[in-house]
């Protein structure tokens, strides 16, 4: 049942109440993050050893990603089956079992309940009733899929397809381009709380138009520009997408003339900041992939990261950046990745623009729930393109979103 009527204009209009309405948000938790979808939970490299765990969240729901004593990965809700305590309070660590601090119910690393203290009572008094079955009181468990070091979780028995089918061939190909099976090295995390609805983050990365206009740094140094060879690619449903571009040594052009952000006289004092080295097959120098419903895979020159979205009510979300390299990187490549990380994250010379823009959007539209965004760039349809002057991937995202949400 629709929560409110969608405005006329179909794919080219997004009503502003979609970003602030509490009922929309509650339904997103059920259908988008709780549905038969593969949600990103981390890199295998974050839990390399037996018993290694990390806390994270799927939508609002706190979970723990853990590697068991046989090396298998599990995702369990961070909520004790007894009386709901968030039992795991360390962000990461190594464990042999999970002990809830309140009454020490003890779970193995697969989430099965293994011990209930004083379960049999003491001297014949108290304890659990005879019909209490340990097997009924394990932690809530999720299905887990790993591909080339990236870990996803979905509702158990929720009917999620195989991860590869979920991604589809085009997305899988681009996914495997960065996650090519080599061992990943964890470089570190960044994390920021952005006061805007989570959907803006997907819009932003599905929007190649803005990159050419907003980001002085990208445009001036040729890292991403409307006049470079590029493409927008989606999966069959439109929920996933990728922006692909190629750095090129183009001079100022008619395009740059339209870009106020091109600053021909801007030079770096220390050019090591931008010293990209080609490392992937093919021509593309940037591939930004958005994978429904909570993952962005960033490959911009040599800076590689996953960006995970964690919702914090309709008006905020956390963006968790996990930077990585490959086990076979040499010291120079690691140094390059760390230097280029200056462009990304909460202090990124490029991405600050985006996080600010998302906050400006939310602040601008929240008081005008009845107005709507206009998404007409590149036409009214949803289709792959080999240029950047289009909002097609945003239209694709909302077409699929409305289906899932029944809006």
């Amino acid at each position: 049942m629709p929560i409110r009527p969608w405005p006329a204009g179909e794919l080219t209009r997004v009503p502003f109440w979609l970003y602030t309405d509490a009922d929309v948000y509650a339904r997103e938790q059920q259908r988008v993050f709780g549905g038969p979808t593969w949600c990103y939970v981390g890199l295998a490299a974050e839990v390399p050893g037996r018993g290694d765990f990390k806390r994270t969240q799927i939508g609002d729901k706190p979970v723990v990603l853990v590697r068991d004593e046989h090396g298998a990965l599990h995702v369990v809700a961070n909520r004790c089956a007894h009386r709901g305590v968030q039992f795991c309070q360390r962000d990461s660590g190594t464990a042999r079992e999970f002990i809830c601090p309140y009454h020490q119910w003890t779970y193995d690393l697969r989430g099965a309940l293994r011990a209930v203290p004083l379960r049999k009572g003491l001297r014949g008094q108290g304890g659990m009733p005879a019909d209490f079955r340990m097997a009924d009181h394990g932690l809530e468990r999720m299905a887990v899929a790993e591909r080339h070091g990236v870990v996803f979780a979905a509702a158990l028995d929720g009917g999620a397809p195989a991860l590869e089918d979920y991604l589809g061939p085009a997305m899988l190909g681009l996914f495997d381009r960065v996650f090519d099976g080599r061992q990943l090295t964890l470089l570190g995390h960044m994390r920021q709380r952005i006061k805007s609805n989570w959907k803006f983050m997907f819009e932003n990365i599905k929007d190649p138009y803005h990159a050419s206009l907003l980001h002085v740094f990208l445009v001036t140094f040729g890292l991403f520009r409307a006049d470079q060879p590029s493409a927008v690619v989606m999966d069959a449903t439109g929920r996933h997408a990728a922006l692909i571009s190629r750095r090129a040594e183009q001079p100022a052009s008619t395009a740059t003339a339209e870009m106020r952000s091109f600053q021909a006289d801007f030079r770096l004092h220390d050019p090591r900041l931008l010293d990209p080295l080609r490392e992937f097959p093919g021509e593309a120098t940037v591939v930004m992939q958005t994978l429904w419903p909570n993952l962005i895979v960033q490959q911009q020159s040599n800076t590689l990261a996953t960006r995970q979205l964690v919702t914090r009510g309709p008006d905020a979300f956390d963006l968790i950046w996990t930077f990585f390299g490959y086990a076979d990187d040499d010291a120079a490549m690691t140094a390059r990745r760390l230097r280029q990380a200056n462009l990304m994250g909460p202090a990124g010379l490029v991405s600050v623009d985006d996080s600010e823009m998302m906050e400006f959007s939310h602040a601008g539209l929240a008081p005008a729930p009845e107005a709507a965004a206009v998404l007409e760039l590149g036409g009214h349809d949803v289709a792959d393109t080999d240029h950047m002057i289009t909002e097609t991937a945003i239209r694709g995202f909302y077409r699929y979103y409305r289906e899932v949400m029944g809006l």
Partner: protein
Amino acid sequence: MHDRLLLRLELEDLNTAYAAALDEGELDGWPALFTAACTYRIVPRDNFERGLPLALMHCESRGMLEDRVASLRRASVYAPRALRHLISGVRVLRSDGGVVHATANYAVLQTLSDHETTLFNTGRYLDELVREDGALLFRQRLVIFDSVLVPGSLVYPL
């Protein structure tokens, strides 16, 4: 003891100049407090404790500091904001071979226009300083912040 005390007081003056450069928008004065070959990194507590090398700002020379300042002015788009540093607990850890190792606590308070002032970031500085032409300069400033979570964007250096 007396020398050490004077050193601490001199470090306090340097930290005051550092804060003033950032708080009063005199950003050009900020790189001038570092040596030409220097390191400036802003690192969340968890990366630091787990030995992970990633930094939010990662500058390997005074030139990179200047590039940061230039980008702030010419490249980045962000809402206007006022910062206010409170630096306390300046402490000389040791001084050997002409290098002073020091630390201090800081808090940065941020005000966005028509918003109330908020507590933006806290942490500590871990510094190495050397003397050039009589003046102490940062050869390294490592900013380790307490929260893994940045509210909004980290536009200016801490």
